[in-house]
């Protein structure tokens, strides 16, 4: 879109946010009572539900590992989530790739050696897609895992960043994601500052990499503060009731 202004001369984005400003984040923990852990997360207009089942028995012998739990992840998008109707909710290449990437991320974050010979199922569904699907999914899965009581090294917080007019822009919406700049999605363990999920799409010059990465990590720290507050509130509420 040639006329679309990603960053106005005053430094505001198309939806009125500042470059480092995140969208409004709201979360409903234990959204699905059937599952062991679940969370409904909404960041701007992107809505995601994540559920966790487990730890439970493995369904196939090949999945059993003697020293750690087997993590299984499935990422799917509802057919009505995107503006153009999606023919298949899951099973296409990009969904499979995202499922694999999320699985590897959480293998690094969950303390898998506490549950040998067992399996943890993580399912994510995008109800409405408005940019940063993967980042919001990671945040939702973190909340669902905490709700399920599965021990983790730390929260996994993720944001998406791009670079427009040499300004890093955090937490992208649909149009900014498809904009001219490169896209970087970074997921970190906030306390140690370690990166567990990193995906760069489109061309990012090596000189800009450090700047963009740093902004992403700052964004993650802010997400972490919000998620932590939400968890504590939820805990207070559930203790009182």
């Amino acid at each position, binding site marked *: 879109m040639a006329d679309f202004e990603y960053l106005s001369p005053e430094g505001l984005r198309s939806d009125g946010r500042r470059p480092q400003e995140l969208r409004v984040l*709201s979360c409903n923990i234990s959204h699905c*009572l059937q599952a062991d852990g*679940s969370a409904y997360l909404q960041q701007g207009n992107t809505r995601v539900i994540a559920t966790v089942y487990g730890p439970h028995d493995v369904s196939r012998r090949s999945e059993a590992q003697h020293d750690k739990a087997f993590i299984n992840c499935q990422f799917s998008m*509802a*057919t*009505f*989530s995107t503006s153009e109707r999606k023919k298949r909710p899951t*099973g296409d290449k990009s969904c499979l790739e995202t499922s694999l990437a999320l699985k590897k991320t959480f293998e690094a974050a969950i303390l898998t050696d506490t549950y040998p010979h067992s399996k943890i199922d993580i399912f994510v569904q995008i109800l409405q897609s408005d940019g940063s699907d993967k980042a919001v999914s990671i945040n939702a899965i973190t909340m669902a895992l905490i709700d399920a009581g599965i021990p983790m090294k730390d929260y996994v917080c993720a944001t998406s960043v791009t670079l427009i007019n040499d300004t890093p822009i955090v937490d992208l919406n649909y149009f900014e994601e498809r904009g001219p700049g490169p896209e970087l999605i970074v997921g970190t363990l906030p306390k140690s500052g370690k990166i567990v999920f990193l995906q760069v799409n489109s061309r990012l010059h090596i000189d800009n990499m450090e700047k963009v990465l740093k902004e992403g990590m700052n964004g993650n720290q802010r997400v972490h503060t919000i998620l932590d507050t939400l968890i504590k509130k939820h805990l207070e509420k559930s203790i009182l009731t």
Partner: protein
Amino acid sequence: MADRILSDFEISYIKQGVLADMRSDGRSCRDYRSFELRSGIVSNTSGSAEIKLERTNILVGVKAEIGQPNPLNPNKGRIEFFVDCSALASPKFEGRRGEDLGRNLAHRLSDLYENSNCIDLESLSIIPGQDCWIIYVDALVLEYSGGVLDCLSIAVKGALANTKIPKLTVIGEGEEQEIEISDNPFDSTSIDTNNVPVFVSLSLIGNQFIVDASHEEEACSLCQLSVGVNHKGSICSILKEGAGSFKHRQYNEAISLASEIGVSVIEKITLTNNTAPEKML
């Protein structure tokens, strides 16, 4: 249907409860549970609705797109149903394992809508033989705990009632016809869903039919009867599932019960549609 494993004691408890007309949650055999129906939740769609009935949660999104009509019915639009039993509902639906159940449910819905002629498909035609509106109804089963077919039909009715189809004008004549869609988002028509029926499921436990069975009750029922009922109480479709059998008298009672309940459920839905749409959270 996804199975729920029950012990013998639990089964006998449920059966005795039904005999005494006092089910495990205190309802009688004719009572329907209360459900929550919200519409207009997903903004990317032309219409949407979400139903929550105890632990069953279904989200329906409707998208209207322009496409080619069925060559056998060139003057009519199309409605296509798709049900996705997502893995969120149960690990048993992971990957492609939920596809069978989803296809089954979608098929039942499309049969119901076809047989009852509830929606005026001719009003969805734009240029006969060339272009028409195709209404894609996509249902997503988020939580599964019994009574799925009922909830599905209610949510679809709610979503269709909520659907806004943009108004358009046809310019030109003959082969050079072009379609112009109105830019104004408020300039739209809605679909008339007054005649749309809903499913009422009855489960046979012992010798008695019960309405709106919970997941545990479904697991110990011998057979299920799914009846499609419209707002006038007329029966649009009947489907029997399961290995059990029943006598003619029981069947008659069941059908009249389903008819009554169907009418009251539709009244509740109509009330919901008339109130302002609520957003989730």
